[in-house]
């Protein structure tokens, strides 16, 4: 099985990303640790995901490329701020771990998880859905090009098939 967090971190660096904002998700645990450990990245813990939209937009104004890590539930917190991204044509790269989508154990995750692609697309973002670990880094590389070279908002959604957490007990043990 591929070590996708390590490959994703490498893809960030190769894409020239210097700023990482995140609200944690169990599925992002190792990637967040890799980003914090990398002194070439400024890794910013957020209190809510929409802060990350401001962080990324402000970073781009200053010439920095960024990526935001979040869980699908956090996509809903970003909706109004995504209006600014579209109006200003700010590049935006989101890496979203899905919940409420495939084998979910928490019913409260299902509505936002099911709505996540539609919400992103409604606000003008391009959505790449990824179902296999070894597709994540190549998708991130392509998404970074689309974002930073073509001034697009791009969300890479990592399926629960990849994350594979099936119970509260498994999540707690992460």
């Amino acid at each position: 099985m591929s070590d996708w967090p390590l490959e994703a971190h490498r893809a960030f660096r190769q894409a020239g990303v210097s700023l990482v904002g995140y609200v944690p998700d169990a599925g992002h645990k190792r990637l967040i640790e890799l980003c914090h450990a990398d002194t070439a990245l400024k890794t910013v813990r957020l209190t809510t995901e929409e802060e990350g939209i401001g962080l990324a937009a402000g970073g781009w104004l200053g010439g920095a490329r960024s990526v935001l890590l979040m869980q699908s539930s956090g996509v809903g917190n970003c909706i109004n701020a995504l209006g600014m991204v579209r109006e200003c044509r700010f590049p935006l790269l989101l890496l979203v771990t899905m919940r409420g989508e495939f084998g979910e154990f928490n019913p409260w995750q299902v509505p936002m998880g099911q709505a996540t692609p539609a919400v992103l697309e409604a606000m003008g973002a391009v959505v790449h859905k990824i179902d296999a670990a070894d597709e994540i880094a190549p998708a991130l590389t392509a998404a970074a090009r689309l974002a930073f070279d073509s001034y697009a908002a791009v969300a890479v959604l990592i399926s629960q098939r990849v994350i594979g957490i099936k119970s509260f007990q498994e999540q707690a043990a992460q």
Partner: protein
Amino acid sequence: MMQRRDVVKTLLAERGNALVVAGLGSTAWDCTAAGDSPLTFPMWGAMGTAAMMGLGLALAQPSRRVLVITGDGEMLMGLGSLATVGVQKARNLAIAVIDNERYGETGMQETHTAHGVDLAGVARSCGFARTLLVREPGALEQACRLLHSDAGPALVQIKVRAEKLPLALPPREGALLKARFRRALLGEAADAE
């Protein structure tokens, strides 16, 4: 009570080469009335994200001073961002909250600051290096020092009169505002990226 346009004009008179983010509504009009600049990014939406725009800019440009000028309603909507800024401890970031205790664009309804919420106190609790509440013109000089020179992050909350003033509108198109800012800051690199 101080008049908001005078206050913002005073703050911006000493901006030097600072990068400015203007929160939506009256503070964007105040910044425009003081003199539009390509290195001012006036927001027309995304309420609650001005401080985070400032943080992203401050982290991307650590050698430049970044000044966020925003209103009390806008700041209240992004209260969590004060915690995020406090943790990052960006020394080059300063936030001026022009506090009329009202939502000025929607009918002058009172905000939480009219009912005791102390934004400078919140910033202090979040780990800001410098905070100040200003009620009198005599304290504006100290406010300018905090905003322009002292090591931040700094937040200055400035109480102003609640009044409707003539509009002073910056360009509206977001893509234009972004492009002019990046070109003014980054030169040719803005288009090479």
